[in-house]
């Protein structure tokens, strides 16, 4: 298991991507899957920075990675504003009827690139928790 905490500055998106890439490399994950995971995490932290922390750069994002039996699990926690994640089906439908809308593509990428995406508010910890899973063969 690996755990790290970063501040919600957009400058850190690249750093997070690099850390995730190293973790994926350590698991001998194929390059195309690695690329998908890095993008999904980029989209997740970008959402946290913009929607949860509303552009504040001093919020904490805690990222926990667990790996075993051909599955990578990433858990992202933040203490920003609680928000509801739209369902994938609704998003894709909305995009098809009006393709040039500005938002929502990040969530589509997260869902398409990962095998499982779940999001909830933990009232005890008072944190948003996002869990994404990716299965892979070495």
């Amino acid at each position, binding site marked *: 298991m690996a755990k790290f905490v970063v501040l919600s500055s*957009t400058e850190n998106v690249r750093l997070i*991507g690099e850390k995730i890439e190293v973790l994926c490399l350590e698991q001998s994950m194929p390059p195309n899957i690695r690329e998908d995971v890095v993008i999904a995490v980029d*989209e997740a932290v*970008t959402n946290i920075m913009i929607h949860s922390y509303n552009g504040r750069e001093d919020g904490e994002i805690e990222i926990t990675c667990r790996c075993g039996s051909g599955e990578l699990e990433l858990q992202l926690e933040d203490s920003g504003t609680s928000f509801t994640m739209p369902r994938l089906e609704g998003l894709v439908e909305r*995009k098809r009827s009006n*393709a040039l*809308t*500005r938002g929502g593509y*990040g969530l589509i990428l997260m869902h398409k690139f990962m095998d499982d995406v779940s999001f909830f508010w933990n009232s005890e910890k008072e944190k948003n928790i996002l869990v994404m899973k990716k299965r892979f063969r070495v």
Partner: protein
Amino acid sequence: MEELVTKREGDVLIVHLKGRLDVHLSLEIEYAVNELIDNGDINLLFDLEKVVYLSSSGLRIFIAAMRKLKDLKGQLKLANLTSSVKKIFKVVELIDLFDIYESVDDALASFSR
């Protein structure tokens, strides 16, 4: 801004982008592209050969420009997409909405004048 360099070819402005188009850089590029359009450049060709990474924040540069140019009856074309950049356009089902070419020369030749 070193990640955005422009070159004029007749009435087409070629916009060479480079680097990682993630949230950190994309907003700045989006503003710069908006400014180009506001200054009268309505035929834009984006050369993405040196774009090494594209997230949805980077996609928004082209979506915003496309929306603006549509209203102004301008044209927007993309050239030299790497396979990982093309994949992002495909996954979000935007690949058919943009005019995408293998090379800058091919894209230039396609502009209706």
